C-alpha cells in the first residue's frame, strides 16, 4: 500500500494530537526516564532519579617491568642481570568471566587488546552479584582466531590493528606481541643491540588466567578489577644468549615459554 487514505490519515493525526495534548498537560508521572536503565518507565514524564543500572566492570592492567612501571624503550635489568627494553608489548584477552559458585557472568564476544602503555579497559555491564573471582584467556578463542578480521567493526579489538595483531599468511591472530632490544652477549654485560620479536599465536597457545578476588557488583556501581602485568616474567626460561626471536611456527620452544609465562606475568594488584 503506497498511501494511507486521507480519512485514515486525518483520524491518525487526530489521535496523535490528542495523545500529545494528554501527555503534555496531564498529571506528570514520575519515574525513570532513561531508556537504557533497568527500570525505564515509558510513561514517566518527570525523572525522579530512580534509574537503576547494572554494574559496570572495568579491568585495570598496570604494566610493570620487574619493580618499575613499564616505559617503552627504556632499558631494564632482568633478575639474571641481562639488560632489555621493550618497544611494544601487548596481548589479546578473551573468554572473560566473573566467577561465583554458579554460572557466573560471561563477557561473550568481548575482546581486549591489552597494551603496555594503557591501563584502563571497559568490559561493559554485568549482572549484579557477589563474585569471587575473574578468569580470562590470554589469546583469542579458536572460533574467533580463525575468523576474518575485516568483518569486525573498526572499534573491535579483532579488526585490523596497527601494528598488526594478525598473521595474514596463516589466518590467525597474534595472541602476544612483545618487541624490543636485548643484550644477547654470553656474559650478559654487553650492549643492548639485538632487536627481538616475540610473536605468539596458534590455538594451542591460549593460556587461562584465574584470579580470586571478592567482587561486590551492585546496581549503579562501577567495579574495578586491578591487575599487574610484569612483562619481565615473559622472559623466564628463555635462553637469551642466542637469537631468541619467535613467530611461533619458526621457533616453537620460545613461543611455548612465552605462553607458559602468562600465569606468572599477570597477578592481582
Amino acid at each position: 500500500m503506497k498511501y494511507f487514505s486521507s480519512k485514515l490519515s486525518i483520524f491518525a493525526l487526530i489521535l496523535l494530537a490528542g495523545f500529545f495534548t494528554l501527555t503534555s498537560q496531564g498529571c506528570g508521572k514520575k519515574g525513570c526516564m532513561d531508556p537504557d536503565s533497568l527500570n525505564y518507565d515509558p510513561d514517566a514524564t518527570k525523572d525522579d532519579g530512580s534509574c537503576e543500572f547494572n554494574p559496570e566492570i572495568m579491568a585495570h592492567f598496570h604494566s610493570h617491568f620487574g619493580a618499575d612501571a613499564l616505559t617503552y624503550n627504556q632499558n631494564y635489568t632482568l633478575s639474571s642481570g641481562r639488560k632489555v627494553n621493550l618497544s611494544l608489548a601487548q596481548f589479546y584477552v578473551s573468554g572473560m568471566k566473573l566467577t561465583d559458585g554458579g554460572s557466573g557472568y560471561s563477557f561473550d564476544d568481548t575482546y581486549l587488546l591489552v597494551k603496555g602503555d594503557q591501563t584502563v579497559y571497559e568490559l561493559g555491564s554485568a549482572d549484579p552479584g557477589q563474585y569471587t573471582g575473574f578468569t580470562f584467556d590470554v589469546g583469542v578463542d579458536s572460533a574467533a582466531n580463525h575468523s576474518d578480521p575485516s568483518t569486525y567493526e573498526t572499534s573491535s579489538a579483532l579488526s585490523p590493528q596497527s601494528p598488526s595483531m594478525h598473521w595474514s599468511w596463516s589466518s590467525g591472530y597474534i595472541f602476544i606481541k612483545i618487541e624490543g632490544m636485548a643484550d644477547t652477549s654470553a656474559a650478559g654485560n654487553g650492549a643492548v643491540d639485538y632487536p627481538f620479536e616475540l610473536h605468539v599465536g596458534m590455538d594451542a597457545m591460549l593460556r587461562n588466567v584465574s584470579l580470586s578476588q571478592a567482587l561486590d557488583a551492585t546496581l549503579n556501581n562501577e567495579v574495578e578489577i586491578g591487575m599487574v602485568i610484569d612483562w619481565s616474567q615473559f622472559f623466564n626460561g628463555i635462553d637469551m644468549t642466542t637469537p631468541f626471536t619467535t613467530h611461533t611456527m619458526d621457533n616453537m620452544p620460545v613461543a611455548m615459554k612465552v605462553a607458559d609465562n602468562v600465569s606468572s606475568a599477570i597477578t592481582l594488584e
Partner: protein
Amino acid sequence: MPAAPFIRQAMLALGISLILSSCRQDDLLRMPMYEPYPLELPPGFPDMPVPDDNPLTTRRVALGKKLFYDPLLSIDSTVSCATCHLQNLGFTDGNRVSEGVHGGLGFRNAPALVNLAWNEDYMRDGGVPTLELQVLAPVAAEVEMGINFKELVDRLNLDPTYPQLFREAFDRDEVDAFGITRALAAFERILVSGNNPYDQYRFQGKTEALNASEQRGMLLFESNELGCTHCHGGFDLRKNGFENNGLYAQYVDSGRTRVTLNPDERGKFKVPSLRNVAVTAPYMHDGSLTDLWQVIDHYASGGKGHPNQSEFITGFTLTTTERTDLYNFLHALTDQDFLQNPAFSEE
C-alpha cells in the same frame, strides 16, 4: 470535517514521507549497488561458490579491478597486485620469485590467478581459507606490498575517488577493510578460464580444436601410466589438496608444514591448475624449473623420493615423439580469450 491548516500541512508532510519511503523500497530492488555481475560460466563448469557476504555485483567487481591495478596498495606506491600477476602471463610474473617493495624478494613463485572461486585453500601452503582473507596476505607481507591494513584503509579514505566508489559498491559510509577485501575477492572470482583448445575438444564438441600431436599428448596425459590426472584432473585440471611432488630429497621450504606444523606434510604444496601452464613459467613452488621440458622430465624421473612424496609419482618413459606430444598438449591448455579478455585488463 474540515481540516485545520496545521493538520493539512502535517498530512502533506506525512504523505510525502510515505511516498519517499515507498520509492526507496522500489529503488532498493533495482539499485545498481546490487546489480549482479553478468558472468557466464564455460561449459562443463559447476556453479560458482560465492560467500553470502560478498555477492558478485558489477560495482564490487569494477572497484576490485581498480584496486587490483593500483600501486596505492603498497607502502611506497610502487607495487600493485598486477605487478606480480600479469594477465598475459596467466596472472603470474615470469619470475622465479617476485620483487616487492624496497627490492624485497618473496620466497615462493607467484601463483597463477585462475578459477579461484572453486579453490578450498589459498596460498601455496594453504594457510588461508578464503579469497577475502587472502587479500590481507600480500598487502601485509614486507616483501610484497608492506603496508599495514589499517593504514591502507586510512589512505584510501583520503583518496579523492575511492570513498565514493566504496559507498556505491557497499552499504557503508566509507572505505573499510571489509570493502577492500570483498571488492578484490569479487574481481578475482571473475578471472574464469574455460575456453582453451582442450576445453573446446572435451566440452564443446570441437574435434578440430586439438591437432594430431596434441590429441596424442592428451591421451598420454589422461593415461594411467603417466597418471597426471590423479592430481591435475577435473574441470579445473587440479584437485583440492596438497602434494609433495618429489622435487627434492630435502626441502628448504617446509611447505604445508609451515602452517600445520605436521611433519608428514613437509614439502607438500597446493596442487595448482594446469590452465595456461605454457605461459606461467618458471614452475614449481620455488620457480626452480624454467620450462615445460624440465617439468616433464622431472615427473618422468619419478622424483627424488622424499618420504612424503605422492604415491602417484612413480616415473615413466616417453619416446621423443611422445615427449613432444605431451609438451604440445600442455600448450593446448592456453586460453587466449582469458589472456586477452578486456574485462580483466587495466583501464
